[in-house]
């Protein structure tokens, strides 16, 4: 029994050490290969096959769930309300939470003790993470891209959080470049890359390069109006930095074609029309 | 005093197409007897033993063990049982199993440990007493089974095929132990397929077939009725109506 126990502990320690080292080696390999531009092909993920796309989507949803404190959000209106009450949405103490619960429960017909206990235990409050807490969603975005390197949304969303909310633009750029290795034709990733250079790094030359790349990849078949508007807006701003007003106007007209009722864009067009075409 | 009193016992297992396992069985075992219980396979021997031990929840008829109901806990305190299929917890050693059973009987730790050592000696388990039972052969399990039946120093010992699976030397040892226990005043009720063993040890026998009692009584008296010159084996075959020879 004693010898068997020692063997078990020995084997267990060996396995633990191996697994402890594996992520460290993996991170090193990730850094090394990312620089070299070689695609990452992990045996573990290969063995999962296509099912990893389902896990990848699940991880992406988990990131959203984490942003909402582990609770599935009901609708966008709640999200908007919560954002307006920035910093005040998470309950400061139990009393506030339970008074609110009681208010809700008293408004329906009497319920018995068991459903009442169930309602108390269940968390139903709507919240968003703020400040440093926002980094808690990163693991799921990371896993989402690891499980399915073709999950463009995960790269774009992840880099937004890394670059703009957590102020780590270099990490965001590295992340997006990895995304481009697996998705060389993704205008969304080029757009996001451009945004990181534009907003965080203030490197407008590189920003313009990436926006132009994205613009070259976008086709009419692409139905993402909001994504297109974002790209055109940033590209327009980049051209404005370099004084190319003709291109700025062209882009705002494209936005107006997508969103004819957008008054802000209409005003911008009028404003730019009064300027000389190149400065 | 009647240790086992069974009157018009009917048992039906209540499964589809099942016939009655016991049909009007009458049986009396007195204190201090060695009582043999014989019959072909499926006769109802194990069912009868289960009834005596209170393991069958529903039956018709009268069953009294030492004057009380079979599921009475104070009666069970005085019974030792050795089952036909000797199977015990593979993750225990014989010593641990015996200690567990001793605790169930409420035997103090000191007495239990002394008893266990004695039984391990008696059952020839000294070398294997601290090994997990997962590695035991059928014969060794049978020895463990016998030892656990004696842990509480029972007044009534019920043995179901006690020598099954034992080598010839162990069989002889087992028979000697049973005789010794009988000399100490224990009442022994055992079922067996070994007619020679029954002939050697028992005071009285009962022969059962298809749930019905065919013959019961002292061995000598039963053979006398058949002219005295017949062997027990021939007598048994003639009673159960087997035309094998």
């Amino acid at each position: 029994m004693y010898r068997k126990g020692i063997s078990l502990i020995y084997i267990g320690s060996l396995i633990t050490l191996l697994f402890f080292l594996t992520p460290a080696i993996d991170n090193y390999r990730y850094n090394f290969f990312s620089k070299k531009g070689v695609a990452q092909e992990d045996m573990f993920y290969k063995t999962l096959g296509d099912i990893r796309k389902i896990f990848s989507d699940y991880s992406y949803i988990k990131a959203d769930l984490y942003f909402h404190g582990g609770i599935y959000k009901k609708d966008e209106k709640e999200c908007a309300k919560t954002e307006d009450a920035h910093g005040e949405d998470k309950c400061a103490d139990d009393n506030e939470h339970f008074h609110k619960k009681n208010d809700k429960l008293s408004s329906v017909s009497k319920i018995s003790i068991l459903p009442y206990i169930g309602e108390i235990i269940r968390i139903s409050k709507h919240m968003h993470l703020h400040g440093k807490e926002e980094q808690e969603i990163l693991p799921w975005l990371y896993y989402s891209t690891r499980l399915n390197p073709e999950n463009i949304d995960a790269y774009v969303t992840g880099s937004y959080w890394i670059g703009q909310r957590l102020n780590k633009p270099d990490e965001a750029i590295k992340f997006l470049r990895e995304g481009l290795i697996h998705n060389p034709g993704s205008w969304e990733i080029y757009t996001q890359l451009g945004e990181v250079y534009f907003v965080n790094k203030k490197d407008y030359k590189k920003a313009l390069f990436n926006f132009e790349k994205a613009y070259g990849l976008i086709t009419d078949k692409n139905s993402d109006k909001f994504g297109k508007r974002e790209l055109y807006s940033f590209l327009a701003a980049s051209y404005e930095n370099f004084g190319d007003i003709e291109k700025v106007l062209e882009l705002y007209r494209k936005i107006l074609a997508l969103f004819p009722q957008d008054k802000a864009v209409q005003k911008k067009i009028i404003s730019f029309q009064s300027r000389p075409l190149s400065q | 005093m009647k240790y086992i009193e069974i009157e018009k016992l009917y048992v039906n297992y209540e499964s589809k197409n099942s016939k009655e396992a016991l049909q009007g069985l009458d049986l009396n075992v007195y204190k201090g007897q060695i009582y043999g219980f014989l019959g072909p396979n499926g006769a109802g021997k194990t069912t009868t033993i289960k009834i005596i031990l209170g393991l069958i929840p529903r039956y018709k008829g009268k069953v009294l063990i030492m004057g009380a109901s079979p599921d009475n806990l104070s009666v069970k305190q005085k019974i030792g049982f050795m089952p036909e299929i000797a199977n015990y917890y593979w993750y225990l050693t014989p010593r641990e199993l015996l200690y567990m059973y001793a605790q169930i009987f409420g035997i103090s730790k000191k007495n239990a440990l002394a008893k266990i050592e004695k039984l391990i000696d008696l059952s020839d388990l000294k070398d294997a007493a601290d090994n997990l039972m997962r590695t035991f052969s059928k014969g060794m399990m049978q020895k463990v089974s016998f030892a656990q039946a004696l842990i509480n120093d029972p007044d009534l010992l019920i043995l179901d095929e006690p020598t099954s699976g034992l080598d010839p030397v162990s069989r002889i040892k087992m028979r000697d132990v049973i005789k010794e226990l009988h000399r100490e005043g224990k009442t022994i009720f055992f079922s067996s397929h070994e007619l020679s063993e029954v002939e050697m040890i028992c005071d009285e026998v009962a022969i059962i077939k298809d749930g019905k009692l065919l013959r019961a009584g002292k061995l000598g008296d039963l053979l006398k009725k058949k002219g005295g010159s017949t062997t027990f084996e021939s007598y048994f075959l003639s009673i159960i109506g087997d035309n094998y020879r």
Partner: protein
Amino acid sequence: MRQIWILAQNTIKALIRKKDFYVFFIMLLVLLVSLLSENFFGARNVSRYIKDIGFFCLWLFSFIIAVTFASKQLPEEIDSKTILPLLAKPVTRTHFILGRFLGTVLASSSAYTIFYFLYIVVTSIKGEGIAFSLVIQAYIMGICFLSLVSAISILLTLYLTLSAGITVSFVIYFAIIWFADKLRAIVISRTGIESVLLNIVYYVIPHYEFYDLRVRLAHSWEAFPLWVLSGVIVYTILYTSVVLYISCSKLKKKFL
């Protein structure tokens, strides 16, 4: 009572000598250490994913141990006929059920306690840790959960085979986790005879969803009030008692 305690001790010995617990322990250790060593874009003190995944795994492993252990108690004893020499001794069928139940609860709770301790140690290394009141609450809820699961698994094996019993236990668990909240919303919103009928259904089903505090632990929500914890403990005791009573009644009528 003595017989119940002795049988319970025997069950714990079985857990120690079978290898299941050690396998799960090593798996959990490897997983937690692996999660701890992950680096996400240089962000420090990212810890909720460890709390979430770690708790999910320890919960799942404890649940598997409880279900498989509890489900095996009766069928294995009956099939291998080890129950016969046991019940031939001054042990009633009620002692047997209660003894095996208690043993399963103690065994699975011991495993849960060790897993939980490991989990708390690992989660306190990185990030914000977990509030003490919530740690205690989650632990108690886990023990209650394992008791309920063990009782129901034992009951199921009196009506089903071993493998069917284990499968149904898992199916019931996942069904409750997925549908109980929706059912409760319906129960609350209805009135009259509909409400009465739905309430009956609601009271009959075992409420596994009460016990899983993973969201609270992982996302640093507050602990719920003491009276709710007491209510859940009372609910567990009552529900488990009813289930065990049915189990004892069923076993008493069973031909062995």
